[in-house]
């Protein structure tokens, strides 16, 4: 990938290059490669233990790959500590929601802006003029996002008391508050009912279209992935099994075998 490609916009936004992860003697990921183009919704599928979450955690720098590289806009992210991933435009949600349970919805989303703002404890304690201005901007942005995701009514509510589906929306709002270029969604449909899954699918598409985002969707729910993804990567036992359009992947004999061949699905 050259600078020229980048300039033309043909280079991938995110490139996973031959990534392997080994835990002790267990190979969780084995030479996985794929590209994400700007504006794409990429579905990452695979049975339990296929390595989806491992890959996800490599992208958010919670795991260090044993070999291979991950490039964001052509630059490796592997030298960055986890807290410096948000600032280059990678935002995420968690599999079983990881909100700040004792904070209000509004404060949860405010924390989402952390990577896009700056302050120091002295200026914060004195509430200097530039801090007040920055807080005003943050509040405006947070209110916009809450309105966008229909969370205004619960803005002042502590998140731990909210229904699971609402908590998932709060997590999405928190991720959006960091203005990510790529949104990593770890099983967003988990725990939602049939109807909620469809609403979620529409929402993800809407976010991609209106907020010009690229989405990596790790999901068990085949219906959701196949209906909204532009591109699908299937993993099994840490290896890439198939890649292509949803229809191509669905028709792939290896994928069918992986899903139907094992009884624990």
């Amino acid at each position, binding site marked *: 990938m050259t600078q020229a490609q980048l300039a033309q916009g043909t280079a991938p936004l995110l490139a996973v290059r031959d990534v392997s992860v080994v835990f002790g003697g267990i190979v969780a990921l084995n030479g996985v490669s794929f590209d994400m183009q700007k504006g794409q919704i990429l579905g990452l599928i695979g049975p339990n233990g296929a390595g989806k979450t491992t890959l996800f955690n490599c992208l958010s720098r919670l795991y260090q790959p044993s070999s291979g590289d991950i490039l964001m806009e052509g630059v490796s992210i592997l030298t960055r500590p986890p807290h410096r991933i948000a600032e280059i435009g990678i935002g995420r949600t968690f599999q079983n929601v990881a909100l700040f349970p004792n904070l209000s919805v509004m404060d949860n989303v405010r924390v989402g802006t952390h990577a896009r703002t700056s302050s120091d*404890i002295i200026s914060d304690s004195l509430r200097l003029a530039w801090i007040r201005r920055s807080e005003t901007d943050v509040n405006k942005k947070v209110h916009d996002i809450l309105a966008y995701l229909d969370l205004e009514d619960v803005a002042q509510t*502590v998140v731990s008391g909210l229904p699971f589906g609402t908590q998932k929306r709060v997590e999405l709002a928190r991720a959006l508050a960091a203005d990510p270029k790529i949104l990593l969604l770890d099983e967003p449909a988990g725990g939602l009912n049939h109807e909620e899954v469809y609403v979620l699918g529409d929402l993800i598409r809407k976010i991609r279209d209106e907020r010009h985002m690229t989405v990596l969707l790790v999901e068990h729910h085949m219906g959701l992935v196949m209906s909204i993804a532009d591109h699908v990567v299937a993993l099994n036992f840490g290896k890439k099994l198939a890649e292509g359009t949803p229809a191509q992947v669905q028709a792939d004999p290896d994928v069918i075998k992986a899903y139907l061949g094992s009884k624990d699905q």
Partner: protein
Amino acid sequence: MSAAEEVVAEGHQAVEAVPKRAMTLGTGTSLVVLAALLVVPMFVKNFIIFQMTMLLIYGLAVLALNILTGGSGQFSLGQSAFYAVGAYTSAVLMEHANLNYALTIPISAAVCFGFGYLFGKPALRLSGVYLALATFALATAMPQLLKLNFLEHWTGGVQGLVVTKPDAPFGLPMSQDTWLYYFTLIVTLAIYLLSVNLLRSRSGRAFMAIRDNEIAASSMGVNVALYKTLAFGVSAAITGVAGSLGAIAVQFVAPDSYTITLAISLFLGMVVGGVGWLPGSFVGAAFIIFVPNMAESISKGLSGAVFGVLLFLVIYLVPHGARQIAILGQQFAGKLKKN
């Protein structure tokens, strides 16, 4: 049924949402408390004024612990060490360098910030009960460190140092005790306001995010290590200021005034006041100052046991401390208004 589905089912049952709890008092209540703090000393004896001064000082120390534990979620049984460093910094500067007492306070805050920040670095690797143990070790070591021979010239060794009580400035017609009370009140108010600002700011939200979920905080760009050590630094700095004021009020510093007992008292004060609720710090401070005296007046021989029973009652009746009482009071007032 997966775990997630169970959560959904529970979520549907939870109809009543939990409203956000305030971290501070309302404006009206704050003004009443402030007025009382300003006016009461004009009508009471010097001894009561002294006790009110100590209430503010311990309140500051509990507030400092509240920022650390209630704010960033880190435990500390070592606050007595920071208090001691603050007290000795002021005492040594006043008695050996003839520095004005008021000037020693910011110096003490800076010294303790550095000390707390440096202590917070290795403590980063510890959490929960292990962190409590490490800070416990710090509290146990401090009195011994202060007795070290080569420091004796400065610290006075086991004997400690006598601190001169300052007179009221500008020829104000008030006793030393009264002046010191108002001086302490000014410092306390300033620190209280700064602390409220801090906890409501971006940094404060980073503290609380870390307390609630470190991995999620880190994913949002919060530098967990930095903010954890900063919380230690801020907490130590405020505790140090309390130590300085305490040294000036008591007019004496000695190693055995700053043992683990002090640290445990402060911890107790935080729990009784309500973890994470700043005004509760002062209620907690009142508890650790006055309740032992009450216990002694009930039974001299068994004061410890009586104190234990009183403490047990408080924890049993109001597990969330003064904060819970405040919330109940607010609800009661709300009902009265409706009727």
